[in-house]
């Protein structure tokens, strides 16, 4: 059985994140920041989250007749021993957006759009760490007979 489009997209997301030289660890298995080796910061943990699907064109008039909006959630960790995590946090948010927008050709071939929708932080409550989620809306088309 061929992989679903959602599966292919997440493979491409993992590949794109691995291309970012300033991310030292990418994993789908979320770990607590205090359990993570210091050499693995900044770290990124992607997960394919909620998804909304709807018919998009009359079924007999196109191959890709369903539109799906997949929520991509990237949980990110940065660490600075001096407690100045703002630079690292902003750099990482920028690097991920740039990768998705400019260089992730494999991913962009699969989707209609992948756009950032929200960044949610820990509000500075964790000393020396910045823990935040980058949320993306991934729109893609697929055929109802072959999800």
């Amino acid at each position, binding site marked *: 059985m061929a992989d679903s489009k959602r599966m292919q997209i997440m493979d491409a997301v993992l590949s794109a994140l691995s291309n970012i030289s300033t991310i030292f660890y990418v994993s789908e298995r979320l770990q607590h920041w205090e359990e993570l080796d210091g050499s693995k910061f900044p770290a990124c943990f992607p997960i394919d989250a909620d998804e909304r699907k709807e*018919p998009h*064109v*009359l*079924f*007999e*008039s*196109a191959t890709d007749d369903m539109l799906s909006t997949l929520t991509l959630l990237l949980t990110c960790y940065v660490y600075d021993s001096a407690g100045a995590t703002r630079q690292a946090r902003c750099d990482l948010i920028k690097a991920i957006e740039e990768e998705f927008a400019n260089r992730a050709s494999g991913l962009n071939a699969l989707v*209609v*759009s992948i*756009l950032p929708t929200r960044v949610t932080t820990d509000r500075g409550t964790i000393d020396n760490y910045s823990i935040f989620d980058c949320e993306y809306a991934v729109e893609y088309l697929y055929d109802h007979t072959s999800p």
Partner: protein
Amino acid sequence: MAIKTYKVGKVVIEAVQIHELLTATLTLTLGSEDTQEIGESWADPTGLGKAWSTSLTCKSDPADTAQAALRTEFVSGDGVLSATQYWVDGSSYFSGSGALVTNMAMGKSVGGIDSVTFEILGKGAISWNA
């Protein structure tokens, strides 16, 4: 149960199916006029000319053959089509002979997929084929 849904049907322009259809509407009309006296009598309208028109909205695909034919007809042709078919399912359809492309509108919106709308006005009879 013989109801139809968005899962079946198509529109064919000049023998080529148009793709990426979002909405398709076929409207048949009969003009009417009442010839009764003004006053207390009840209306008894008389049928005048019949007409048909089609409105199509698609995701814009400039390379699609039927979309391109409509665009070309409107932009550089005389706007006249020789064959339009509106299929309600896999075997039944309305078939119009001559038609005029009267409107083309393209749209972009933030976060959306580009769309194009065509309005087609029948120039002659339409027939039902089952």
